[in-house]
């Protein structure tokens, strides 16, 4: 049971760290407005304009455009459009890398679905009597094979670019290379197991079944065992890398660059800002008084300017 426990712990750890990171970003104090255009929050205006384009626009209710936000982010996630438009060579590596990872998430989903189905008596095989059994069989092979292939290619591409391209190399740390090399090792072990020992992912599906049913399964082949150990270790390591930037994307766009919300009278935002105005600051330049609240400091204009004017 050692491997299933290790596998479960690593997945739980990863999910926990992801939630922790999202929570950290979500619980930051309300900030001053700092949006960027063309924004998503617009009322069908050409050129990416904002409510400021209209007379008395500041008095209008500021509505968000959730569909527009999903469309933008979805397009970015699915196609990496900004890279494609601005840095095509990099896109050739970064896109397959990410697309492969998304497919591998899909692969784990189909492995899980196959395990659930097989425990309920639906066999997963190319000649399975039930349509679902056949569909899951092929989808698992498709997502697993394509995922490993694409992310493997992408990882090699990123490693190559990061070591060959001077502007990327200068900003890369030993950890960046290690992370990519580790990822490549995990993918290679997975591909080896798939090609030489488990072409239909039967063994790994059985492993998932032992995990979800918490039962003692049959003996796993060596290559799949090695892959699962490496995968678990990588999942434990990933939260300490820049790979976690996926958590931030929602916040950078939704909560900063597209956030035009007003702190209207009595709003939650205004209450938050008022509370933050009572924070005591400790900045120690001569035009400020450490220990005073933001509100006190902001209102203390004349005296402050006198003092700051002194040499």
């Amino acid at each position, binding site marked *: 049971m050692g491997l299933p426990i290790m596998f479960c712990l690593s997945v739980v750890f990863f999910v926990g760290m992801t939630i922790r990171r999202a929570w950290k970003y979500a619980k930051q104090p309300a900030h001053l407005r700092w949006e960027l255009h063309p924004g998503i929050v617009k009322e069908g205006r050409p050129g990416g304009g904002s409510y400021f384009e209209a007379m008395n626009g500041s008095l209008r209710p500021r509505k968000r455009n959730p569909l527009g936000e999903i469309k933008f982010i979805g397009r970015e996630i699915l196609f990496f459009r900004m890279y494609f438009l601005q840095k095509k060579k990099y896109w050739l590596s970064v896109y397959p890398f990410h697309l492969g990872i998304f497919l591998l998430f899909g692969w784990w989903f189909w492995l899980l679905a196959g395990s659930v189905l097989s425990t309920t008596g639906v066999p997963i095989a190319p000649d399975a009597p039930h349509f679902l059994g056949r569909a899951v069989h092929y989808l698992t092979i498709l997502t697993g094979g394509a995922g490993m292939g694409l992310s493997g290619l992408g990882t090699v591409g990123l490693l190559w670019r990061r070591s060959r391209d001077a502007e990327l190399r*200068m900003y890369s740390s030993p950890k960046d290379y290690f992370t990519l090399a580790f990822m490549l090792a995990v993918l290679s072990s997975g591909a080896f197991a798939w090609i030489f020992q488990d072409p239909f992912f039967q063994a790994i599906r059985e492993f998932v079944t032992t995990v979800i049913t918490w039962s003692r399964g049959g003996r796993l082949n060596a290559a799949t065992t090695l892959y699962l150990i490496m995968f678990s270790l990588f999942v434990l390591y990933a939260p300490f890398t820049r790979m976690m930037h996926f958590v931030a994307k929602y916040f950078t766009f939704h909560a900063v660059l597209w956030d035009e919300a007003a702190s209207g009278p009595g709003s939650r935002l205004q209450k938050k800002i008022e509370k933050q105005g009572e924070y005591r600051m400790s900045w120690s330049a001569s035009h*400020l008084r450490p220990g005073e609240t933001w509100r006190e400091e902001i209102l*203390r204009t004349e005296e*402050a300017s006198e003092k700051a004017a002194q040499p």
Partner: protein
Amino acid sequence: MKKKPRIRDISARVEPLVEITTDELMPLPSPYEAADRNPPIEPLSAEQQEKYESSLDGVAALGLEKPKSREEEERLVGSFLNGLKKLLTREDNWTFLQPLVLSLENCAKCQNCSDACPVFLASGRQEAYRPTFRSEALRRIIRKYLNQKNPLLSRFEGNDVELNWRTAARLGELAYRCTLCRRCTQSCPLGVDNGLIAHEIRKIFSQELGLAPKALHAHGTVQQLKAGSSTGLAPKAFKGIVRFMEEEIEEKTGKSVKIPVDKEGAEVLLVHNSGEFLSWLENPIAFAILFESAGVSWTLSSQLGGYEATNYGVWYDDIQFARIARRQADVARKLKVKKIVVGECGHAHKALAVVADRLFSEETEIPRESYLPLVEDIVCHDRIRLDPRKNDFPVTLHDPCNVVRLMGIVEPQRKILRKVCPQFREMTPSACQNHCCGGGSGLVNMDSTNFRNWGISVAGRMKFKQILEAFQDVKDPAIPKYVCLPCSNCKGQMRDVFNFYRAQEKSGLYYGGLVELVVNAMTDLGTPFLPWTKRP
């Protein structure tokens, strides 16, 4: 060519990280191919080099004096680190903590942003000016000195920047080699904001070390809070200028206009950058003619803080910024106007209408808008009679970053120009993808030592190139061309750039605001408002 500096060289390398030579700068189109002085930036005098920190690129923007003793150096470095810690706490930096943390923790180091930065490109891709250079140096300092205590793990993470006085001073200078135009942010697939990181470094220097460019602090926000404006224009002198404006209007147009000042209950309190009153009086005059002709209920204010739209605090100090914004809103409320309308000043737009938005409570709130929709309404709904033939010369539009990319006002100015300028043409790129004039975030105001050389030769280079390219089909200097710069700072920047390159003489380039073009097209003005458009 000198070897490209690595990030760790910010602390290690003794000689300057950047050496600007004419050969390496981005080339300009004809007839400016060889127009730069060689060297394009005057070296500091021996005395200045001795006194000021200039080890980044031989330029002293901040006017940082070198520490005189080991103790002073240690104190300054300690203060920098303290400031950095405070920048990461909610009590000291709730104003920008969330965007800052997101930007510090999530850069993929893909360098997508580099090709968006006009300073980096115009400089000939000088490594230290790359948007990620200062950000990455700051990240490495944070990880090494505040997060990762294990030296082995720290090295594994690449945290190789030593924090010493040279590092702190170079970071301070680098924060003023960025115009905060945030074009880099626009190109980042993760929304990481290198402009914000530059802004936050400026805050460490101002709010903790008490070090900010004189032009922005002592002669800027402090003077504004004390004397009423960042130009030092006092209320009495302001009233005198308004009387002079009325005389000018009568003399030039034959119209007798009484400019309303401190008129209680007006619809609109119009606030200008006070630099307009001193350097480009034709702009507030044009507003007065336009608003009076269109029957707008408006007023100017002569109260302390009421006739100055600028707020330099938005570039370097959150508290100074908030103090000024509050005072501007107070003046408007006391005058019982319906709203504040900001004139042709880009950063004032962003500061008062956007960044200050959440600082106002129910009692202090007052609507704050741009002049653009109002002027669009006047022009496009025929509230005045216009003859576009009076503006029959090539015109191009510069989009001030603060109004367009950072605030989302894109179309009104275009609708106005299409209506009054038959030869209007766009620059490339334009609108939200525009390039900064190079004087943004206070850079145009900072004239100490040789910094203006840098502002013209490097920061203003991309915009100058864009302007020249917009007029490629009418290169003859005998054909006057108008660069519409609807922002005081952008005008100041292009004034200096045009003078440096003798652009009026060589290319027939004139510059000015947007409202001047509208007034120039008014049919009931006998003489052209723009004197150079008079037909021989």
